């Protein structure tokens, strides 16, 4: 790699007195993963396993008139066929799954359609057979009669007067009240701060523009999968890749109308998620099939099914109007955002509204959000869902504003930056945040300070994700040899079990290697919310912290009883218990561990937490690119991501999150999109034509970890998983403008689009 005269990966550490936190140990699950031993969902095998496949709708919108599964059932090798009628009839309810609310009826309808199919790829029936080839043959024998209906593919189409309606019983919730109007708009909400009309009057410069984005997919490499098996006592056991074992458990309980205690979900290792593996798809179908066959049934989606049958992130229309004084003080900003929810209500437009203006201290702000159903797969979370769409608009508008004002784009942002005490347009008041520090680090970075190569364009942008807290549990047991076993329930997508173990290690004063973390099933650990929302290192780390404090307290008490002294006189540091007054009294955890059984039994610490002190994270990008003027092809030449992590527990994995989110953002900016044909079918549902960046498409991604400690966490942690996917699309658009003078307001910025812009 080109040697540079600057450090490509920097940690601007503000807290350096930790022993384990901030170091880079090898991850505990690493050896299994580099040797092929780790068991992912599709690897799971069991005696008597049958293979399931799912029949999916070829139509974007149609009534199901009849389903005849008899020929499929008769095929040699087929053991069972299920449809929506195999679900028990239950009353509808609102479920809290993952980070959102979902209606049970919508969840059930998405898993197996009953009267209507709402998108190409909508699941209708499942087959279990002796091998996947037979199962697939059986699908072609299921006869379904459809009445095809007209469909809508974009927010414009869905919101138009007279548009075909997806749900006859969906009325628009208009500013908090049921409007009674049947519509594809499930919800229209507003956030209002101050008086934007007045604010725009005061503005001396205004930028007003519309931006459009199209559907993109999380692109995890392992498709959805799940194995189900009932035991004779009526308990259901699931093995699957999921970002939330308890979400799977709770969803299945409602879908199958059985108590949660009758379901055990064992999460396997997970081949990527990015939010897309929070919802469930195949597990209920596998469960229904397994009930009929009496054997384990495994379903693994194909890549095509993953694109067409699981939730991507929305296409959207974003309208931005922003005004400022000549000095660069923003006086008003308005964001109008319509997002595709897919076939059922629940796009991330609400989250987008929380993020769009978050980096800025605005006196007057107005956000209009529209949640719109369209005949596409039900959207699922994708890494800071909604925020990248919003930022593609607002962060471009700000650069336009900066240009009109003759200001440096980072200076404009700094002039308006949100700090502790700033009230967001959507309501919350910020505690300590690092937006300013990130912007300053951007300005000072050698990348920003360097001369652009001739012919290159440079762009900057900043993005935000609020991060979440939610529930986590953790148990820690002291072993005879002074190591500890740690059990937690956060499925590990990116090395989190190690970051969690490191926090426990820090408390106990032992090495990270002396903590043995395990990600366990729903029978084995207390309720733990999803691995998502950038919560895992923060909240499950906190549970580990608390559980370790519990162990520490018990160790001190045990030593006190062994030595027959007051526990108050003892301390524990660096894994050694000692007396504050008597230097003779010293015991290592190893020595204590060896005596546990003789001195009263084992020591187990535990914690269940739902921490409130969540700190949001800001991430900034500086990108240099060049454009081949004859073909419109963009080459990313240099990319720098700067993010506030609060405290980077394991800097390598924080850097990894930043680089991964940047890569996804670059793909989103340049080439990724769902091509829908006139019949509402995705024509590029393969990894050939859904173009995610390859190793050859990206440069090294330089990183700076800023650490503005989150006062709400014992080590200062802010979640980092998500904010880094937010700035790339606007940063790249801004660089395209800088390079060519053309402002691209439509994603992706494909070569054709770039050339079109050059022409006009």
């Amino acid at each position: 790699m080109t040697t540079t005269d600057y450090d490509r990966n920097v940690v601007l550490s503000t807290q350096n007195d930790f022993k384990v936190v901030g170091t880079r140990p090898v991850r505990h699950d690493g050896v299994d993963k580099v040797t092929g031993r780790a068991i992912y969902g599709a690897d799971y095998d069991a005696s008597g396993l049958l293979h399931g496949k799912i029949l999916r709708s070829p139509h974007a919108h149609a009534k199901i008139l009849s389903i005849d599964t008899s020929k499929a059932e008769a095929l040699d090798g087929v053991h069972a066929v299920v449809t929506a009628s195999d679900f028990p009839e239950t009353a509808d309810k609102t479920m809290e799954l993952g980070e959102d609310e979902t209606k049970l009826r919508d969840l059930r309808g998405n898993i197996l359609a009953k009267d209507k199919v709402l998108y190409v790829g909508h699941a209708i029936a499942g087959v279990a057979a002796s091998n996947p080839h037979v199962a697939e043959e059986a699908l072609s024998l299921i006869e379904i009669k459809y009445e095809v209906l007209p469909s809508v593919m974009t927010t414009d189409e869905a919101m138009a007067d007279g548009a075909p309606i997806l749900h006859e019983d969906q009325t628009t919730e208009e500013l908090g009240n049921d409007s009674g109007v049947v519509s594809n708009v499930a919800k229209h909400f507003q956030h209002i701060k101050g008086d934007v009309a007045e604010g725009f009057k005061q503005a001396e410069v205004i930028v007003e523009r519309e931006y459009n984005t199209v559907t993109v997919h999380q692109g995890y490499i392992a498709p959805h999968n799940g194995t189900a098996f009932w035991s004779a006592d009526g308990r259901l056991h699931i093995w699957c890749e999921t970002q939330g074992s308890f979400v799977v458990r709770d969803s299945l309980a409602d879908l199958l109308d059985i108590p949660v205690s009758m379901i055990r979900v064992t999460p396997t290792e997970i081949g990527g998620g990015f939010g897309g593996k929070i919802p469930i798809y195949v597990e209920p179908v596998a469960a229904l099939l397994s009930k009929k066959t009496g054997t384990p049934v495994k379903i693994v989606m194909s890549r095509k099914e993953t694109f067409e049958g699981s939730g991507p992130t929305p296409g959207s229309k974003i309208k931005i109007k922003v005004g400022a004084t000549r000095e660069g003080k923003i006086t008003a900003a308005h964001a109008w955002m319509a997002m595709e929810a897919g076939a059922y209500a629940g796009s991330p437009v609400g989250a987008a509204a929380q993020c769009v203006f978050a980096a800025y201290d605005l006196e007057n702000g107005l956000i209009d959000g529209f949640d719109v159903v369209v005949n596409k797969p039900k959207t699922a979370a994708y890494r800071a869902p909604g925020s990248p769409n919003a930022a593609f608009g607002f962060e471009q508008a700000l650069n336009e504003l900066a240009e009109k004002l003759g200001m440096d784009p980072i200076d404009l942002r700094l002039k308006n930056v949100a700090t502790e005490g700033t009230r967001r347009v959507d309501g919350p008041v910020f505690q300590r945040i690092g937006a300013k520090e990130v912007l300053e680090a951007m300005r000072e970075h050698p990348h920003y300070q360097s001369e652009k190569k001739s012919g290159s364009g440079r762009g900057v942008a900043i993005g935000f994700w609020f991060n979440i807290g939610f529930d986590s549990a953790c148990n820690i047991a002291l072993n005879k040899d002074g190591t500890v076993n740690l059990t937690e329930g956060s499925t590990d997508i990116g090395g989190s079990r190690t970051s969690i173990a490191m926090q426990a290690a820090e408390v106990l004063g032992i090495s990270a290697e002396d903590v043995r973390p395990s990600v366990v099933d729903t029978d084995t650990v207390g309720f733990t919310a999803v691995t998502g929302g950038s919560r895992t290192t923060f909240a499950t780390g906190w549970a580990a912290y608390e559980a370790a404090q519990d162990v520490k307290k018990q160790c001190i008490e045990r030593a006190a009883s062994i030595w027959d002294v007051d526990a108050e006189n003892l301390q524990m540091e660096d894994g050694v218990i000692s007396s504050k007054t008597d230097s003779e009294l010293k015991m290592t955890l190893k020595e204590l561990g060896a005596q546990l059984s003789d001195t009263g039994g084992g020591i187990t610490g535990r914690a269940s937490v739902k921490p409130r002190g969540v700190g949001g994270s800001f991430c900034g990008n500086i990108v240099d690119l060049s454009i081949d003027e004859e073909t419109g092809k963009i080459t990313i030449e240099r990319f720098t991501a700067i993010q506030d992590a609060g405290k980077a527990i394991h800097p390598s994995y924080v850097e990894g999150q930043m680089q991964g989110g940047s890569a996804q953002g670059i793909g989103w900016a340049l080439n990724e999109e769902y091509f829908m044909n006139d019949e509402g079918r995705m024509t590029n549902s393969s990894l050939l034509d859904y173009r995610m960046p390859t190793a050859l498409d990206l440069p090294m991604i330089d990183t700076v970890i800023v650490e503005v400690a989150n006062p709400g966490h014992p080590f200062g942690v802010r979640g980092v998983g998500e904010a880094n996917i937010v700035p790339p699309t606007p940063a790249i658009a801004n660089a395209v403008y800088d390079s060519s003078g053309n402002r691209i307001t439509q994603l992706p910025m494909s070569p054709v689009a770039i050339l079109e812009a050059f022409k006009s």
Partner: protein
Amino acid sequence: MTTKTHVQTTINGEPVDFLCEPRQSLLECLRDVIGLTGTKEGCNDGNCGACTVNIDGRIVTSCLVLGVEAQGASIETIEGIADGTNLHPIQLAFLEGAALQCGICTPGFIVATKALLEKNPDPTEHEIRFWLANNLCRCTGYDKIVRAVQEAAKKMQEA
């Protein structure tokens, strides 16, 4: 028609016999018939590289090889990269360089990297990226993977 073919191969240095239908890919045979699940399926049409194995000295996407074609072939999978419990320098470099996050693409990358370094022990960054362009990673952005390959190359040359 369930006539199966008897296929004889060498996998990771050991003779392995298995039965399969012509329609089963080598990937399917490795995973579902032989039980070597280290090689992964991401797309089943040659576009992600998660199924990369080495056959007779060159890497292929095993989803696009029929099991029956493996008759007489010598196959190396991720399970054969380490020498017993001694990890290969490439595996060590990936671990120490944090070049994996979810890890699903990692077996494919390691097999492909080994083939690269056997052919070209001191590749440039561009050569590394070009060789590995068929191996998709969605988690890492490739930065730490490229560094791990360079580190492994260095270690292997020193040895």
